[in-house]
C-alpha cells in the first residue's frame, strides 16, 4: 500500500441511546476526526446514529474462524447453563 493512502477505519454507530454501538462498515480517512466526519456523511445520512466510534482497522484483533471449534468447545457440553435444562412442575407456574 502506498504510504500516502489514507488508512482504513472501522465504523461503529449507536443508533439511539439504550442500544449498543454496532459495526456498520469501514472507510478511509487521514485521521480519527476526519473518520468521524466521513462516517457521518457515509453512514448517517438519514439520522441513523447518535454516536460514532472509529477504530483503525489495523488495530482490530480478531479470532481465527479455523480455531472456532476449539475456542467455543468449553461452552458446548454445558447444557445445564440453559434454563430449559431444569424441570419445574407445571403447578409452580412460570419461573
Amino acid at each position, binding site marked *: *500500500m*502506498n504510504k*500516502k*493512502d*489514507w488508512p*482504513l477505519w472501522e465504523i461503529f454507530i449507536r443508533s439511539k441511546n439504550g442500544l449498543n454501538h454496532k459495526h*456498520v*462498515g*469501514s*472507510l*478511509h480517512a*487521514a*485521521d480519527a476526526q*476526519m473518520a468521524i466526519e466521513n462516517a457521518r*456523511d*457515509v453512514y448517517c*445520512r*438519514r439520522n441513523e446514529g447518535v454516536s460514532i466510534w472509529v477504530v483503525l482497522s489495523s488495530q482490530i484483533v*480478531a479470532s*481465527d*474462524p*479455523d480455531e472456532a471449534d476449539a475456542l467455543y468447545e468449553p461452552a458446548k457440553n454445558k447444557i445445564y447453563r440453559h434454563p430449559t435444562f431444569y424441570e419445574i412442575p407445571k403447578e409452580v407456574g412460570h419461573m
Partner: protein
Amino acid sequence: MLSNEELEKEFQAKIDAEIKIEPKDWMPEAYRKTLIRQISQHAHSEVVGMLPEGNWITRAPSLRSKVILLAKVQDEAGHGLYLYSAAETLGVDREDLIEELHTGKAKYSSIFNYPTLTWADIGAIGWLVDGAAIANQVMLCRTSYGPYARAMVRICKEESFHQRQGYEIMLKMAKGTPEQKQMAQDALNRWWWPSLMMFGPPDDKSIHSAQSLKWKIKRQTNDELRQEFIDKTVKQAEYLGLTIPDPHLKWNEERQHYDFGPINWEEFYQVINGNGPCNRQRLKARIKAHEEGAWVREAAIAYAEKKQAKKTAA
C-alpha cells in the same frame, strides 16, 4: 490439515445450508476473485453513475428538485463507498480498485455511458435505471458473502427513494404540457432498452452465471430478473400514459408474463467495450477528479502526521 478438496466441500455445504461466508472464513480463490470483480464493478458503477445525473444539478427546474437530486447523487457516492468497503474485506486495496477503473481493466454498468439530454432523463433514470438496479440489489441482499449482503441491505433501503423521485418527475412531465409529455416519452424511448440490458446477457450467453448461482452470489438469473422488471414496469408506464418502445410487448396469459421483443446485444457489447456515446467522457471525468484531488489527500495525510508528531512530542 484438510485438503483443498475437503475445504471446498465444507464451503459448499455451508453455502447450501444458507450460512453466510465472512471475511476471515476459508473460501475458494475463485469465489474471492469473483466477488472482488463483482463488488468492485458494482462500486465503480455507483461512482460513475453520479456523472450523468450530476450533469443536471445546476439546471434542475426548481429548488425542490435540486436538493432532491443533490441528495440522490450523494447517496450514489455513499453506495459506492459501502461497496468499496465490502470489497476491501476480501483483502484488496481501494487504490488498486480505482486504478483498475481508470485503466479500463475493471468495467462499470454500461448504462452510465448514455447521455442525459433533458430533465426527463433524470426522471427516467430514477424510474427505470434505479428500478432495474433495485431488482438486482434486492436479490443481492441474500447473497452468500456477509459484507456484500449487508451493504446491499443498506443500499436497498435508500434506493426506494431514488425510484420514487424519478417516477414523480415522469408523472409531472407526463401530465404536463404536450411538449413536456413528449419529452418524457422521448426519455422512455431512449432509456428503455439500455435498462433491460442492465441485467446482463441472456442466461445461455452469461459466462459467470452458473458458478455464481451455485455459490449463491447470485440468487436469480439475468433473464428471470429482467422479466420481473418488465412485468412490474409495464403498469407504471400505462399509468403515465406513455408507450414502451417495443411493438412486441404483449401479455402472455399462459406464461403469466409479458413477452417482449429482441434486445440489441450488439449495442450492449459495443458500449461495454468502450464505444458507447459517453465512455471516454465518463472515464476522463473520473480520472480528472482523482488526479485533481491528489494534493488534498496528500495534504490531509501530512497534516495528520504533523498533529500526531506534536502529540507524541508533548
